[in-house]
């Protein structure tokens, strides 16, 4: 009987193709935009999460809270603190440094260029690997001996020295007030996706290079951040437990309460960003969903017209034995099909827009099946809800009056 009704509904809709299409248009646009917006949101979230994967999800920064008024010098970190932390939590920390960096003008015999020098440990290559094109990465000796060696990004090397293979070349730069001469020991290249470059910037005119972190803490040997990568094998709850454990340890070390310290974690930021994006796409999707109501009203309108036009048919059906419920179901099926068809076309449209946009931006797009199912069911519900009144009007028609209707 359901199949029978659906067939009947399709016949009725085919009789007025243009009208059916125009009625569906509201639903098509509504569902299409909801799908497009939600999918774009999901795609963005996917991209951000992949960026966090790239920069290391276990990465975190520990520092004295900005809300603490009586900051003492002992609240800052020293190299001794870092070694102690590494000793105590060695199995859970795969990398630790002071997160110091400096901006300065580098001058070679060939050219001069503004540089961003990042102070890193030699183990940084393990947590944030780069491709070494020439020479070598920083080694333990560089770190320990505070050697004025640098590993330079290939493009920066080309601009500073006129050649990518700058191994052995020297440049002068003033870091924290000290003008020194540095030697390039290696040249690296970091691959980034088009989207990553767009989001993070390729560095623009500023060159970048790694120098031993021990260089940047010296001579005063105090720094604000303890920057570390936790072991990547930990699950999220384990990570969070470790973060609090570390905070508590450092607080004790510094004779403070744990809540005086601030732990900024990549997963925390990622979660915040993710929920912000989710909320945003929900909000915009919700606004787009309003157009579904407009589409639903369009369906109700056309169904009312249809019921009036077909009053006589309703009378005939009732005279031939259709019960109230048979007529109700017939018209409900019609409006539900109208709406569901609009929904399906809308999904194709919305999905198409997202795929095209993804193609244009060169990023893989995500259209979640859950969203699609939700959209189709929602459009069918819209059809049934807005079809209810016209259908009940049809079902309640008195057969005598309906048969007499001209």
């Amino acid at each position: 009987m359901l199949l029978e009704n659906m067939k009947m509904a399709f016949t009725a809709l085919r009789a007025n193709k243009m009208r059916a299409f125009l009625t569906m248009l509201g639903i098509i646009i509504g569902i299409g935009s909801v799908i497009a917006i939600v999918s774009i949101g999901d795609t963005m979230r996917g991209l951000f999460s992949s960026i966090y994967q790239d920069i290391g999800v276990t990465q975190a920064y520990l520092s004295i809270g900005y809300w603490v008024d009586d900051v003492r010098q002992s609240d800052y970190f020293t190299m001794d603190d870092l070694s102690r932390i590494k000793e105590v939590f060695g199995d859970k920390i795969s990398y630790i440094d002071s997160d110091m960096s400096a901006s300065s003008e580098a001058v070679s015999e060939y050219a001069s260029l503004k540089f961003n020098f990042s102070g890193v440990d030699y183990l940084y290559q393990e947590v944030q690997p780069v491709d070494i094109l020439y020479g070598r990465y920083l080694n333990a000796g560089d770190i320990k001996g505070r050697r004025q060696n640098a590993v330079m990004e290939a493009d920066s090397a080309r601009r500073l020295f006129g050649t990518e293979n700058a191994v052995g070349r020297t440049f002068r730069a003033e870091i924290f007030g000290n003008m020194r001469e540095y030697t390039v020991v290696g040249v690296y290249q970091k691959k980034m996706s088009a989207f990553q470059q767009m989001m993070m910037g390729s560095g623009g005119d500023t060159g970048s290079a790694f120098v031993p972190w021990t260089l940047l803490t010296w001579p005063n040997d105090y720094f604000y951040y303890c920057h570390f990568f936790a072991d990547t094998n930990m699950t999220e709850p384990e990570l969070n437990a470790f973060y609090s454990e570390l905070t508590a340890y450092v607080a004790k070390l510094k004779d403070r309460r744990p809540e005086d310290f601030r732990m900024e974690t990549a997963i925390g930021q990622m979660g915040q960003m993710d929920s912000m994006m989710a909320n945003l796409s929900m909000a915009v999707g919700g606004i787009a969903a309003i157009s579904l109501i407009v589409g639903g009203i369009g369906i109700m309108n056309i169904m009312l017209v249809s019921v009036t036009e077909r009053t006589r048919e309703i009378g005939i059906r009732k005279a031939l034995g259709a019960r109230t419920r048979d007529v109700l179901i017939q018209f409900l099926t019609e409006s539900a099909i109208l709406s569901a068809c609009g929904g399906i076309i809308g999904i194709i449209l919305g999905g198409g827009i997202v795929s095209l946009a993804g193609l244009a931006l060169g990023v893989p797009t995500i259209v979640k099946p859950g969203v699609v199912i939700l959209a189709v069911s929602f459009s069918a519900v819209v059809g049934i809800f807005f079809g209810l009144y016209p259908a009940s009007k049809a079902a309640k028609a008195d057969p005598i009056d309906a048969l007499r209707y001209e």
Partner: protein
Amino acid sequence: MMRRWLKSSRGELPEIETDELIKIVNLCKVYDTGAVKVIGLNNINLTIKKGEFVAIMGQSGSGKSTLMNILGCLDRPVLGHYYLDGIDISTLNEDQLSRIRNQKIGFVFQSFNLISRTPAVKNVELPMTYAHVPKRLRHERAVALLERVGLGKRIEHMPNEMSGGQRQRVAIARALANEPPLILADEPTGNLDTASSIEIMELFSALHDEGATVVVVTHEEDIAAFTERIIRFRDGKVVSDVRTPKPARQPGAREGAEDGGEHPPVTACRPAGS
């Protein structure tokens, strides 16, 4: 097969053995139009036996349409009782009335009332759809019925591709679909020319000869002349009830069948219980 199926699906309707197909007792119908109450039917008593061929006559306003609506279970009496095939109609609810209309009555209307943009065969299938007859059986039976009324070659034609007489024959085939005990025709020739009118009345006569109970509402004397009993109404009352029996005719000897040739009588069309 059809018979067995219908019996089993008819479960909710009581089966009462009676040879009185229609029995009306002290029936009144009053229309309440707000300010004035119009008496449509005033204390009618009437019995129609199975197998009768009856004309109900009267001028407009005589109450014959009101009676037609009540006989067709489209309307309910205000007072009195109407027994159709032994069932007291005045006690039934909307859905039960739908079921009665579906199973007990075959309607033929003045303006044909076929569903537009729907082929003849689908129109004939419609009452069987509401009776939940299986699809294949429904189609076979609809084709057989269209052949019976002489439209075997037009089963896929749309109503607007057919003449008035042809449309009315589709309507008659539809009326026979669920083998109802009563064929109720409301001015069946009102929109037809004389030749088509005669064809249609011949068809009713043939159905009657096969045992069907046919009630025709009309205001034309020459149409009523086809029947064997004429009941005249005036001002909501029966003013005369005359029987004019005719000799039974041979089935299949009808004239004016469109496709020509002979059509075997569809014996399954005999009303239930006969």
